[in-house]
């Protein structure tokens, strides 16, 4: 296990490095930030002076070298726009997105287990059919469209919820709701599928034959095995939920990492782009490693090795 883990961490570091180098060069190919930063009417001399001062005129590999030099001092660079260390800005934004994602994923997983198990109990039964169509329909709608429609209905027309912003529970309902929809729809299908397999497996049949109570059969024997694929899929959704966060944070005005990344890419604030990509990748890969461990802990076949 330990050996596996260290191998996994090593390869993750490799992946992050690869991603990072790729983004560094890609981002710089998207244009000189000076154009965006300076007012349209700025004289040519000011433009030239600006690009020189910030080293945007240097060849990319020299810029990369400079960046590495700074990085060895633990310096992620300085935000061109915000006049602050990029890493500070990123560390402010990460908790917002993490809490959004954690709540959304918890609800999605718990909800999927409940709905999926119930659906699997009688495949093709009425509940199965309804839950399948509803969850898939919800997961198939463009999220930004759902978000704006929800604001118009629940805030403007009905006045039940605040339109946007950060605050108490009412402020969380719509953003979380939007974020939950897609992983929930997907996970319900996964739970359903694996539960059907688990419920028709030999050991469940044996348990039933032994006269074990139905509840125990479902929730102890079947669920335990049925959960394994859920964990894998939930892990893959970690990156996907970051996609959703970009949209949700943009619309609801949450100062999370998704919005920060989009804004800094649009503004060509490279230091912030780099820092946020690095940190996000680390978070996502850590989650994947944790999931691997959880998988090993839960899977009897691996556990008993």
């Amino acid at each position, binding site marked *: 296990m330990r050996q596996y883990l260290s191998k996994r961490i090593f390869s993750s570091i490799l992946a992050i490095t690869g991603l990072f180098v790729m983004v560094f060069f890609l981002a710089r190919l*998207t*244009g000189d930030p000076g*154009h*965006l930063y*300076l*007012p*349209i*009417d*700025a*004289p*040519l*001399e*000011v*433009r030239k*002076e*600006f690009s020189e001062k910030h080293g945007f005129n240097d060849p990319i590999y020299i810029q990369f070298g400079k960046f590495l030099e700074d990085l060895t001092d633990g310096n992620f660079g300085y*935000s061109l*726009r*915000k*006049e*602050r260390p990029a890493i500070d800005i990123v560390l*402010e934004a990460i908790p*917002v997105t993490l*809490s959004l994602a*954690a*709540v959304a994923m*918890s609800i999605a*997983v*718990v909800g999927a287990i409940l709905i999926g198990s119930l659906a699997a109990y009688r495949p093709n039964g009425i509940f199965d059919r309804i839950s399948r169509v509803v969850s898939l329909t919800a997961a198939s709608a463009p999220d930004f469209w759902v978000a*704006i429609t929800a*604001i*118009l209905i629940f*805030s*403007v027309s009905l*006045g039940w919820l*605040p*339109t*946007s*912003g*950060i*605050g*108490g*529970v009412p*402020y*969380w309902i719509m953003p979380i709701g939007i974020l939950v929809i897609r992983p929930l729809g997907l996970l319900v299908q996964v739970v359903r599928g694996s539960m059907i397999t688990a419920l028709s497996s030999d050991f469940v049949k044996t348990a039933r034959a032994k006269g074990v109570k139905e509840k125990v059969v479902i929730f102890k024997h079947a669920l335990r095995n049925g959960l394994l694929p859920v964990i894998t899929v939930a892990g893959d959704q970690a990156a996907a939920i970051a996609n959703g966060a970009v949209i949700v944070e*943009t*619309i*609801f*005005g*949450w*100062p*999370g990492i998704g919005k*920060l990344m989009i*804004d800094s890419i*649009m*503004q*060509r604030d490279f230091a912030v782009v780099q820092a946020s990509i690095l940190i996000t990748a680390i978070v996502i890969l850590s989650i994947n490693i944790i999931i691997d461990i*959880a998988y090993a*802990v*839960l899977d009897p076949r691996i556990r008993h090795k």
Partner: protein
Amino acid sequence: MKLKNFSFAISTATIMAFGSLFSSAYSAGKDITIVIAEEPDIVDPCEATRSVVGKIVKQNVTETLTEINPADGSVTPRLATSWKQTDNLTWEFNIRKGIKFHDGEDLNAKAVVKSINRALNPKYDCEIRTKFFGNIKLQASAIGSHTISVKTESPQPIMPALMGTMTVVSPNTQEAKGVRDPKGTGPYLFNTWTPGQSVTLKRFDGYWGDKPEVENATYVWRNESAVRAAMVKTGEADIAASIGVQDANDPKMDFSYFNSETSRLRIDMTRAPLNDIRVRKAMNLAIDLDGLMGTIFPKGVVKMTQIVVPSINGHNPNLKPWPYDPAEAKRLVKAAKADGVPVDKEIVLIGRLGIYPNSTEAMEAMHAMLTEVGFNIKIKMMETAGWLNFLSRPYAEDRGPALQQSQHDNNNGDAVFSMFNKYACKGAQSTTCDKQVDAWITEATAATGTKRRDTWRKAQKKLHEEIIPDVQMFHMVGFSRVNPRIKFTPTISTNSEIQISQVKFN
């Protein structure tokens, strides 16, 4: 193990959510909430010319020496009480006495000079410098306890107007750009800034002017226009600055006003077939501006005849907008073609996403109308950075013929802020070069009074009638939504500043 994980995640989330349950965002009493479109990335007053910074700090936290009256472009006193030109290159400003900064420092000549030098320090790229003083060599010095002199290398007849952009900060302000708690002389103290969430201002009791009604002002930001409009409707905010025309559907709370922006398609006159005047004429005749008004563009827009709006010194009121005459346009295209002008060549229409509400639909409409009279147009919508690559010099040598959607904002009182950059041979975004116009621009820049005004007018007339460097569109209007519980009338300057001291309660 798995249960523990779950319960941990859920309990953390619950604590986070409930922790802030009782914080209310609804504004009440003598406090107001303003929702703007973008998050301020910086609040340094030396960037106050940027609209997102200006809306927060300009004339609220920090004041300027002079103020430009949005209605007619005239210059009125603010921190300076009077000014005079002592010679061709020198101006003197008398500073108001008995004013204190928020941190207790006195406002005097020294403080003003320090503030000017800070904003113009070439080490930092303050926008006041890069936008307005980029090629002006300026020397400010204190010549009395409350008098400063400003010397320049070339004559600057509009120095008082330029000083309307110069925010004055406390002498204790850090030298480098990026101050996070700006201190000025304005009616409001910069109170808190929670990055990503809000900025709050608090009434300054030691303010030299009239005591404003609003006690606290909170700024929040939301990208989507629909959300901003909804926030005022539901009472979560009191002012929603700049909402889209489709969201301004409640006449009781929505205001429309000229926003000093002028919208056009810039024609790259250096490339065939756009170098032929018949082609440029045909393009203007092809556009059904009346059809666009009240549909894709709001009802209140005015057809442009020149780059500056009527309230700007140098606007020529005698010019007539282009009529809609597709038949004549087709005839001109045909005539040009007969003379060997390559009118079939693909012309790229470079648009910018979100430059104004419905900007994409507007370009689709222009595309349709230009195609109708026989041009071969290809739309290319770009985000800001990409679009800027095409807008300013140096232009790519291998570029093809292009029209560029652009919008120009001049609410600084004088045509000088527009004419050189847009139409002079060396102007940063100019694609035209006419000796006569160039001479007039130089002449007007150094002139004063009616001579200045008339020279600008001559240049406008020639551009409009003989050069035709633009497909002319509109002087634009903006929309803001204001909660009926307050009295506040958005004006042409709401784009760049929101003076909270003008807000009254009903």
